[in-house]
């Protein structure tokens, strides 16, 4: 097991470096650079000023030298400096990380719990109206574009009904403390987290339903019935456990997006997380911040792939021992 993990970590480091290099060239292939953007905003777009800025940021060096400097920094756990925000990139990212994790993890839990639960319910009531309802909802959630669902949620629950706050992380200027603050953040969390979770909730519903139905046709379920086991036990112990295998794989995929996957939601709901940081950095050609965010989010994807594989070894003995 330890050997397996070390092997996988070794591979992950190589993949990460490859991703960094690829991202580096991709970003530099886009027209414009931070110096041009900053000069443009300052209204002083003459060649000399831009050239000075470039020299200050090290952008005048050959591309490969820049890459070398950047990679050298990353290997020493230094993600570089954002000239735009006048802060080290790492600090910038870590200041935004908690808000993002709060949002994405809530979405993750909501979608996984409700999705599998609804899937199990639907599979137990195949062909009845509750199954049709759940399947239709799943289709709807699956097909609705995230930004549209987000906008509609804001329009309905916040603008029209005024039940929940529609943007931000907490009420600005209220200066709540303690439990009151937790409650406030919780209220702000509901809409973005639910919206973000809708897509995967739909995927879990459909996957769980299909998987439960498929497993219930397998021979060992008939064996279980022939033993005289009650159908509740058969559902839980024999069908559900086997049906969850593909769901675990999907959950791993979703978990990998915990850091990088919330750009749209954070932008619509003005959520102060990594997604918005990335969005802003993109507009400003803030190379180091973009590279840093990409780096962290790819690392998370790799990490969760590894966790999924380890988890799989626990759920499925065929992989553990085989």
């Amino acid at each position, binding site marked *: 097991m330890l*050997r*397996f993990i070390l*092997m996988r970590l*070794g*591979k992950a480091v190589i993949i990460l470096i490859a991703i960094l290099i690829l991202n580096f060239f991709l970003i530099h292939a886009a027209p414009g650079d931070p110096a041009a953007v900053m000069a443009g905003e300052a209204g002083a777009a003459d060649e000399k000023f831009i050239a000075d800025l470039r020299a200050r940021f090290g952008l005048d060096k050959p591309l490969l030298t820049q890459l070398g400097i950047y990679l050298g920094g990353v290997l020493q756990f230094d993600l570089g400096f954002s000239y735009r925000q006048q802060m080290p990139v790492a600090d910038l990212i870590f200041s935004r990380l908690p808000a993002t994790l709060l949002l994405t993890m809530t979405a993750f839990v909501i979608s996984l719990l409700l999705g599998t639960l609804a899937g199990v319910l639907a599979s137990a009531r195949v062909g009845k109206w509750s199954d049709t309802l759940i399947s239709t909802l799943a289709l709807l959630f699956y097909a609705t574009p995230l930004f549209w669902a987000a906008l509609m949620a804001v329009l309905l629950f916040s603008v029209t009904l005024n039940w929940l706050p529609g943007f931000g992380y907490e009420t600005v200027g209220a200066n709540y403390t303690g439990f009151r603050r937790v409650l406030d953040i919780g209220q702000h969390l509901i809409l973005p987290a639910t919206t973000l979770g809708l897509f995967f909730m739909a995927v879990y519903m459909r996957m769980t339903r299909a998987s439960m139905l498929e497993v219930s046709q*397998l*021979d*060992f379920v*008939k*064996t*279980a*019935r*022939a*033993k*005289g*086991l*009650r159908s509740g*036990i058969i559902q839980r*112990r*024999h069908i559900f*456990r*086997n049906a969850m295998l593909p769901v675990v794989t999907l959950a791993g995929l979703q978990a990998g997006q915990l850091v990088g996957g919330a750009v749209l939601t954070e932008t619509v709901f003005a959520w102060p997380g990594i997604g918005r940081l990335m969005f802003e950095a993109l507009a400003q050609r803030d190379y180091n911040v973009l590279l840093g965010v990409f780096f962290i989010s790819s690392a998370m994807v790799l990490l969760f792939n590894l966790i999924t594989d380890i988890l799989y070894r626990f*759920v*499925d*003995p*065929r992989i553990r*021992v*085989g």
Partner: protein
Amino acid sequence: MSDPVLRIENLRIALPEGADRDYAVDDVSFELNAGEILCIVGESGSGKSMSANAMMGLLPDLVRPVGGSILFDGVDLLTLSEAQLLDLRGRRIAMIFQEPMSALNPLMRVEDQIAEVFEAHNLLTAKERSARAIALLTEVGIPDPEKAARAYPFQLSGGQRQRVMIAMALALEPEILIADEPTTALDVTTQAQILELIRNLQEKHGMAVMFITHDFGVVAEIADRVAVMQYGRIVETGSADAVLDDPQHDYTRKLIAAIPKLATDREQDAIGRQKVLEVEGLSKTYVTGGGLFGGNKRVVKAVQNVSLTLAEGETLGIVGESGSGKSSVGRCLVRLMAPDAGTVRLAGQDMAKLSGRALREARKSIQMIFQDPYASLNPRSKVGRIIAEGPMAHGVPKAEAYARAVELLELVDLDALSIDRYPHEFSGGQRQRIGIARALALEPRVIIADEAVSALDVSIQAQVLDLLAELKEKLNLALIFITHDLRVAAQICDRIAVMQMGEVVEMGPARAIFENPQNAYTRTLIEAIPGREKELAAAG
């Protein structure tokens, strides 16, 4: 014989609308006596499993009993509530199934799956349950029962899994054991062991066994009484000896006649004929795992130093149990995979070394027929296209290829109009004929048939074997027939190569192999053929 423990009277089970007939089981009556093994014999779709499922209250959703009764201990099982059935299942009537691979939950330890039987009926404490599990595993003859108890199903062989199933069925000493094709998926030597085990346990525990099978060989080994089913009806019942030796009904006679006979008069008469295929030193090793970052490497020597020749008009059988490497040999010969070493000389060229255009060209001369008639035809292609595709890929104009497809269909006794139909519109035997037509389309010199009749019912199997023999004569083909079934090999092969663990352990004329096997493993295989003793006795 004592009183019947179970009596089925005029049982009628309705199929859902749109099925090929109205009743899966139609007016069926029989008795099951204490201490006997009753074999229900029939081909697929005869309804033989349905009555068993009805006894357990385990019929599929849309299938329901509409008449008759199943009397057990004075009660009609068809009238029981689900709760009453729960109490009965596993405790008084137990069941084992065909596929030991899939009949156990892959995620649960063997011990827990056995313990569940006690749990289902609220018997014993957890500790006693696990002790009983080990005792039961010991009784069914699993080596190292403590270890097997902690194992997951995938860690056991097919035969061991079937033993686990039997242990589970025996747990509560049921009065009736239903065995639904329990040895069909097993190798012949394993099958012989499991049949013996069932026989011994039945005598020891005095159970009544209802044994469902399609195989008259198995019937000869194990049955006290036999009921033959066709299209949902019982056409003949009687003692095993009476039915086997003196069948009264036409269908029974037809079934028994269709069983390939072990006696073979085939002698090698290929001497002097032109060799079409010469294989020397063929080897193939599978390696899994390993790679850039290490990991556990697993090496399987699937084919080791196999040499054989094949003459025009000759049929060579490659027989062996699962994992013996017989299919790997076939795949190497048609270059579905590349051998690691050895030469495959086909009409003067070494197939093993060819690549690109030359390989494609050479492939025309050696074609394959596969085992599963359902999976080996593309369900989205019409039959005409399936057959014409090969010649067209080799540059034959479309119209010509389709005209040839029609001829080929007629050659394999299918209607010419079949070219516009899809594979799902055909039965298993018909599909296998399409597979044969497809193989013939490229006018090969050698055909490799990999378990080509294994998935077919015995009467259909006989027809397809006849067709192959006839085509071989007509087209002067050389045939390599890969099979696990020695009866089939005896019927069709001129020479036989016996494989074990990747090696050919014995090769010779079919008659010599069956009458005077030299190798110990060959002898084990032949002795394990179900029904062999009876056949020998009958032959005098």
